[in-house]
């Protein structure tokens, strides 16, 4: 293997180079507990980069879910509140109504948002609450050991569908993002991902729009992120991202589903 290049910047480098990317100040010093390569980490980082760039750190309130991202409040250096499993959007509703000048988001996994929290999710969106919902779709329950989620793909093996999900026993992967787009109170619905640098750039733009629309009182903004779970999927991070492109995108294609008029 080629020799490692020293980390220290030489005097010449110090003079000629400028810093163009560093960890955002809106993330705390605490290291993420997430598994190597986990999409939750990338989404936390990108969300906090946007909060930093928009300079809304002291005006943003996040609601953490139950799931792997239950400790989001250890990492995001903003005001945060935990919620019971699936109820993040209901808590976000209360926070936004009490403090309407704040930027409020709920951050939820697919088990949280589309299984136990389906009712809260749909009714929050149907009321057109002026919040942003960040929906991490990794097609599995990560935290509890890789059980089948409503979003699990047909044929996908999980600890509770060891021979693969079938329509007969578990129905179809739920297209909750498309369902939500049909509700009139919902302003902006987009499906993004984080497996390549360009995907990350697109996600960043989507979060920026989400906060902008909230400022303009447009209604609910719903941002799905097609994400990975290397541990639950029993793959390396590189394998997981390749699998995501080949298997998740045909069912959950990235792109805008609804944009404000």
């Amino acid at each position, binding site marked *: 293997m080629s020799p490692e290049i020293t980390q220290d910047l030489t005097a010449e*480098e110090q003079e000629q180079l400028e810093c163009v990317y560093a960890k955002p100040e809106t993330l705390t010093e605490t290291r993420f507990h997430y598994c190597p390569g986990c999409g939750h980490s990338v989404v936390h980082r990108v969300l906090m980069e946007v909060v930093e760039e928009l300079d809304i750190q002291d005006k943003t309130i996040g609601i953490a879910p139950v799931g792997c991202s239950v400790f989001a409040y250890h990492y995001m250096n903003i005001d945060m509140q935990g919620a019971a499993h699936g109820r993040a959007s209901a808590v976000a509703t209360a926070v936004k109504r009490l403090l309407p000048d704040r930027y409020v988001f709920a951050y939820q996994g697919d088990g949280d948002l589309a299984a136990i929290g389906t009712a809260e999710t749909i009714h929050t969106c149907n009321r057109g609450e002026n919040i942003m919902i960040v929906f991490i779709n990794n097609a599995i329950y990560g935290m509890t050991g890789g059980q089948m989620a409503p979003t699990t793909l047909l044929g996908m093996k999980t600890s509770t569908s060891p021979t693969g999900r079938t329509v007969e026993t578990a129905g179809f992967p739920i297209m909750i993002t498309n369902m939500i787009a049909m509700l009139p109170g919902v302003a902006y619905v987009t499906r993004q991902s984080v497996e390549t640098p360009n995907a990350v750039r697109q996600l960043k733009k989507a979060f920026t729009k989400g906060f902008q629309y909230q400022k303009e009182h447009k209604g609910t903004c719903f941002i799905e992120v097609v994400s990975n779970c290397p541990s639950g999927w029993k793959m390396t991070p590189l394998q997981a991202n390749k699998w995501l492109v080949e298997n998740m995108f045909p069912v959950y294609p990235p792109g805008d589903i609804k944009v404000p008029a």
Partner: protein
Amino acid sequence: MAKGKVTFDIETCKGCELCIEACPQLSLALSSKINAQGYHYAVLIKDNCTGCVNCALVCPDAVITVYRQKKKSKTPVARITNVTQNITVTIDDERK
């Protein structure tokens, strides 16, 4: 000197290799050494980084800081005002 450089928060790296895959210059690799968490950490192995930021964008753990050559200054070398007749101007730009 390369156009860019990356540095790593070695102890925070989890050796996921996503940065290595994302680098168009093939500038990165995992070290043969491990950090205190027990992971082989990512390192720069070639002096050809362009500072494109791709690696930092996909790094889940915000391990990477990216540096890039400063943009050439846009301050004018000369200003010509109150011209009443044809003139010839020769600019000797030593900045290349």
